[in-house]
């Protein structure tokens, strides 16, 4: 017996078609992660499974209840499905305990004492028992999200839907929410999750759906999707997830934007604060070294960052078009001169000027340089 059956649904907002003839069957115990570009219809698809978006065509079944039937008892069917939002949406006028017990007391006619006992048990599970009388506005994002999860769980749903549950959280709080999701997964809960947390998706999913072109573009096991995607757009998306690419074509490029994307990239892979800073620093120094001393008339660089989860190391790849120039060699020479006792003001000055290179040398695990004469490209590989 399938848990959720979506049959050929389509949905448009005005003239914008978001979903076209999409079908999906979720079996009991499956954990499905939906990935894809923003605006690709992931959220709309997920929301339609709880009829928060009403599809224009097609039908949706929860177990054997048809959600899209005009005669459907929506309120009863919705109890079977838990929904967790990106923005938590706790009831702001109620304390944590009342937030959780409101539905079981009113809808399941549970006795208050019984409901509270059950709520406390669940709160204990997510480590928030001490917050039972707190009002939502004093809680952190991560705490709010764990409570929102408990609020759904107390209704004993048969399937839980998560709409980007960690996207509104500080990087420091993502972990606690993911831990809660892992706990749920372990308990055998059927889950459908929309997320941008790729490493989490790989770890928790039994099946990954990549959504694009108004539907499920490609699906498969995490290994299939992440390591060996078959179709072009999936490949591009996965590549973009794994690599941060940046083009620099002007001396006055937007450094702040680049630093921002490096930060985002780092937080996506759970790269620590210190390492993220080093990554930013090294990237910046390398780019400016090439901009200032690269001796090329036009600026044409492309940068690619990647992170190896096994080695826990990040790799900076920079290609800079122009004449051959290896700043590491040059700085070495300067240093060598100094050692040979010929140090004078100019050498010291040179060392100061190439301070960036010194920083890079001290920070990087490995520095590689190669000049591709055919393409007139300086190629750097710096591992951090």
């Amino acid at each position, binding site marked *: 017996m399938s848990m959720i059956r979506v049959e050929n649904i389509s949905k448009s907002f005005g003239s914008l078609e978001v979903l076209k003839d999409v079908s999906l069957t979720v079996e009991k115990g499956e954990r499905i992660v939906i990935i894809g570009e923003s605006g690709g219809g992931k959220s709309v698809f997920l929301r339609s499974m*709880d009829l*928060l978006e009403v599809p224009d065509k097609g039908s949706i079944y929860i177990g054997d209840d048809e959600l899209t039937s005009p005669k459907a008892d929506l*309120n*009863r069917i*919705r*109890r079977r*499905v*838990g*929904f967790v*939002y990106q*923005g938590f*949406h*706790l*009831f*702001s*006028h109620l*304390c944590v*305990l*009342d937030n959780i017990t*409101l*539905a079981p007391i*009113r*809808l399941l006619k549970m006795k*208050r*004492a019984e409901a*509270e*006992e059950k709520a*406390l048990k669940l709160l204990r599970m997510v480590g928030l028992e001490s917050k*039972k*009388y707190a009002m939502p506005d004093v809680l952190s994002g991560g705490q709010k999200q764990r409570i*929102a999860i408990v*609020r*759904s769980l107390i*209704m004993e749903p048969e399937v839980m839907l998560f709409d980007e549950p960690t996207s509104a959280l500080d990087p420091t709080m993502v972990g606690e929410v993911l831990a809660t999701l892992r706990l749920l997964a372990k308990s055998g809960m059927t889950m459908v999750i929309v997320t941008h947390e790729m490493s989490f998706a790989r770890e928790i999913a039994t099946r990954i759906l990549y959504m694009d072109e108004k539907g499920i573009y490609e699906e498969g096991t995490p290994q299939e999707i992440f390591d060996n995607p078959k179709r072009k757009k999936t490949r591009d998306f996965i590549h973009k997830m794994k690599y941060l690419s940046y083009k620099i074509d002007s001396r006055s490029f937007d450094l702040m934007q680049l630093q921002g994307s490096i930060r985002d990239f780092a937080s996506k892979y759970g790269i620590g604060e210190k390492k993220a800073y080093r990554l930013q620093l090294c990237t910046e120094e390398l780019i400016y070294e090439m901009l200032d001393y690269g001796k090329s008339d036009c600026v044409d660089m492309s940068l690619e960052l990647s992170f190896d989860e096994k080695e826990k190391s990040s790799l900076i790849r920079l290609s800079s078009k122009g004449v051959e120039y290896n700043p590491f060699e040059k700085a070495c020479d300067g240093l060598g001169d100094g050692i040979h006792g010929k140090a004078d003001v100019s050498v010291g000055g040179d060392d100061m000027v190439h301070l960036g290179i010194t920083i890079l040398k001290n920070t990087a695990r490995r520095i590689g340089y190669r000049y591709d004469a055919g393409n007139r490209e300086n190629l750097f590989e710096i591992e951090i």
Partner: protein
Amino acid sequence: MKIKEIVYKTLISGDSYKTLLRGLGVTVQIAVFSVILGSLLGIAVCAMRRSRIWPVRKAASLYIAILRGSPVLLLLMLMYYVVFASSHVSPTFVAIVAFSLHMSAYSAACFYSAIEATDKNQVEAARTLGFSKYQAFFLVTLPQAAAIAKGTYQSTIVTLIQWTSVVGYVTITDLTRVINNISSRTIEPLFMIVIGLLLYLGLSYLCYGIFALVDRLSSLKEKPLKKTPLKKEASGNEHDSG
């Protein structure tokens, strides 16, 4: 003593204080009925303002715009000299009708904006748990909207009390009219006006006091409920250890 004489002349001689109290009674009567009827009507207008049907919604907005945009005194005169001109109803009744209409427009606007200010996402979250539209409204939207509306609603009432001072125009002997009568009869306007101001001030504070009391009572009602699980827990622990 001069003060003694003034007090005697204005308040005691000829049972003036009784007239004063009667005037106060009329003011309170008009205010209380107008607030109650006006608020009930205001709820209805607010519901219409939130209707899914376009003409109903539009009619409600128009009603609110017209009544809020016209002086309450003109509304009162319209009622007294035109609408109820040929019917033999008491002027006080006419005043209550006029002020109720006035109050309904202000309270409808107040309720509407408070409901609009609540977080719709929380309603949707309630729906995902299985609550119906009405349950979600009464359990989530209403308590939050009430908290938002409270301040404006309170000052609307206080303003209404003060505006009732114009009913003298349509032959009603309310507090202001009595003050006016006594001060012109005794030629002690300053004293009487101060008395009048104090009485209106008293009414306003009474109104704030009632709100504060309701607040206190509702929070008292919630507290014992929140304390129960604590005891339950303690006794549960005893069982565990025993």
